[in-house]
């Protein structure tokens, strides 16, 4: 167990350093002057005077060598200080932590919804392979993959906010405002989760211990509940973790359309505006959380399927 924890800790530190450095470099390897981008994010105008560029560059230390700037940030991070945002001039932690709380709520709600929907569908499809139930469930859920969020989100707003007036069209004020963004985000995971559960059920059904259980006197339903379903859910835990990690910073479109003040929108704006401290702070938190969640998922996977224990060595 200790080697596993050490290995994962190393992975975490490496991922944080690599990703924060990559984010740090983005403004310098994309077209346009980073300082002018910062100014334009504060002042929405075309003309940026050179004196302002120079004085801001000086006050933010952006004229220093790149590596010096990076290690200065790393030093501050080591003492728990994420620094100040270039654009908002407020503490990065004060922006990242509320955004993280919002995104976590949204992701947990949407993936929870996805699990609730996909579990019965996947089990039903997996227990009746090739039959009408399986075909309908597979066809419908697979179609969700082809529904992009920028199409689904306005459609849901049109129906539930504009036509039926039962849900808010946007904002983040209470559970009702969470429904439409969560449903939008849940559609594609529903598709993948259902497919994974179906495959898991099919595989578990074909295992030798199922007929053996039936031979020991268990009914078909008992055999399915005790031996097929638990084993069929193993792939879901890994897939859940992967989606969880992905959605932490990857729900930009949904967050913009529904005006959700989450991590995706925050990171997107930070990168667009060359707000390096904010982007780095956000990425560090997202990466750390993603590595932690996938590590936990591995533990769960191990509990559900002891045969994969060796892979953690």
């Amino acid at each position, binding site marked *: 167990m200790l080697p596993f924890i050490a290995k994962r800790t190393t992975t975490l530190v490496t991922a944080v350093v690599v990703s924060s450095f990559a984010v740090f470099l983005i403004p310098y390897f*994309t*077209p*346009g*002057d980073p300082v*002018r*981008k910062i*100014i*334009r*994010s*504060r*002042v*929405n*105008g*075309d*003309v940026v*005077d050179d*004196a*302002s560029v120079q*004085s*801001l560059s000086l*006050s933010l230390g952006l004229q220093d060598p790149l590596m010096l700037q990076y290690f200065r940030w790393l030093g501050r991070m080591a003492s728990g200080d994420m620094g100040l945002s270039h*654009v*908002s*001039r*407020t503490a990065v932690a*004060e*922006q990242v932590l*509320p*955004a993280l709380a919002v995104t976590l709520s949204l992701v947990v709600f949407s993936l929870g919804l996805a699990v609730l*929907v996909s579990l019965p569908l996947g089990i039903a499809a997996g227990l009746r392979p090739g039959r*009408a*139930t399986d075909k*309908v469930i597979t066809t419908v859920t697979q179609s969700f993959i082809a529904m992009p969020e920028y199409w689904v989100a*306005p459609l849901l*707003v049109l129906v*539930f*906010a*504009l036509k*039926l*007036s*039962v*849900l*808010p*069209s*946007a*904002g*983040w004020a*209470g*559970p*009702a*405002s969470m*429904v439409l963004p969560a*449903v939008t985000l849940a559609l594609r995971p529903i598709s993948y989760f259902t497919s994974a559960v179906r495959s898991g059920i099919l595989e578990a059904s074909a295992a030798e211990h199922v007929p053996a259980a039936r031979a020991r006197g268990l009914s078909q339903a008992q055999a399915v509940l005790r031996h097929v379903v638990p084993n069929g859910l193993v792939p879901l835990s890994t897939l859940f973790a992967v989606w969880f990690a992905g959605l932490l910073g990857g729900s930009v479109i949904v967050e*913009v*359309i*529904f*005006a959700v*003040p989450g991590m995706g*929108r*925050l990171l997107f704006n930070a990168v667009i505006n060359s707000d390096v401290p904010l982007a780095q702070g956000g990425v560090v938190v997202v990466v750390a959380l993603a590595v932690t969640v996938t590590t936990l998922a591995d533990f769960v996977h191990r509990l559900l399927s002891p045969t994969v224990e060796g892979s953690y060595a």
Partner: protein
Amino acid sequence: MLSVNRSRTIMCVVALLTLSGCGFSGGQGESGSAAPAADTSQRIVVDNFRAPVADWALESDAAYILSLSGCLETLTSYDHAKGEVVPMLAAKWTQSSSLQWDFTIREGVTFQDGTPLTAESVAAALNHVLDATVRARAFNRTMISGVTALDANTVRVSTPTESPLVPYRLASVNAGILAPAAYKGATLNPFGHCTGPFVPVSEVSQQSLTLKRNEDYWGGDVQLAGAEVRFITNGATRAAQVQTGEADISLSIPVASLSALDSAADVKVLKKDSARTATLYMNNGKAPLNDVDVRTAIRKALDLDALAASVYEGAAAPATGVFAPSEPWAGESKDAPKQDLDAARKLLKDSGYTADRPLEIIAIVERAEFADVAAVLQENLKAVGIPVTIQAKEYAAAEPDVLAGNYDMLLSQRNRLIDIADPLGFLTADYTCSGSYNLSHFCDAEYDRLVTEAGRTADADERYRRYAEAGNILTDKAASIWLVNEQATDAVRTNVLGYVQDPLSRYVLTAQTAKSGS
């Protein structure tokens, strides 16, 4: 059996979604009655298109949010209806010498923290903006030398050169006045330190600003109990919110949402000419566009009417020149140039242009519609024998090449009044020989002379006449091609009363803004 179960599942999901929304009061508001009465217990929701930046620093666009929220006020303000600068926190002003303006502070005004507005507090506030690291566009040390308190009620503003535009500069939101307690070192705290009709009480970062009525407002009774200004960057979302009644006023509605709002009950769409014109910049300093005949031929090849009707769906008007016709400095009214393909071909032939020199249009990607605009221009120019390639770029990526003169044409847009309610800054920066933002690389001695003279002319009518003359030179020389004048479009619920649209979105919540009872 299976289909029954499936139906039940679907019904359950729909029921769940419906129940989840039961607590939401997003229903339709009352339809506008003949004579609605203001209900002073009402609050209002405004969807704004930008969120605060720079920790509310007044040199940044955060000043616009404080101003439209009815918190921040300035010494003067610009009345669009009258087309002139009018008193606000200053009761009157006078030019005391060629380089000095004296402003008399309005008596009886207190900040929201209870401290009185004095000449000293005004001078301190203005000097704070002058010392900002990133210069305020309208109010910085290049045009203002300093601000001093002459006595308890008089503030003197000094300029390095004679400028008739000082009262205009003091109408800029960047020159807003906050109480001395708002300034603590490099940070700024506007909460409770404004003079306006609304007091900001709380902010949810990147989401909203909540305000309450200022019971002691110097400008009279405030008609609303409070307000919430939401920061919604997505235009379609702002449109949806005013349609559902979640918002009472939504600013800057995108073209794509206009048809839905035009037909929506209880919503009124307000439009005004904006100071923003979609422009085809041409590189006047590089062949073949350094030839005025080639530039004129390109202008004659374009069908601006079709462009406005198709891409902009009628939400923008074909441009008649560098200014919108409704601007007081637009000069004599004229029609938008009409497409004349034969004249265009003749000019091209006379200039010696041949199709073996294709041209490139850079379309900036920040404006989604420019991809379609560029395609229309490409077709128009193809018809007169000019092959055009289109390159989509972020503005930041295009700017260095454009400023250096390494381009043919740039499809972009520009706000003429982004600093002050006078086009001098725009005409100087964009088209004078030494202009700091001369994307066209245009240079004309007569034009420079007119603009310089205008900058020294105190009489507004005379100044506007010179602007019009300068604009005519730009049109005659086809320095750029002004394609369409965009409109400022706001959507307002019909139970909102006393709302006066400001095309620059500086004044939205005022003491007169009201809402009828629901």
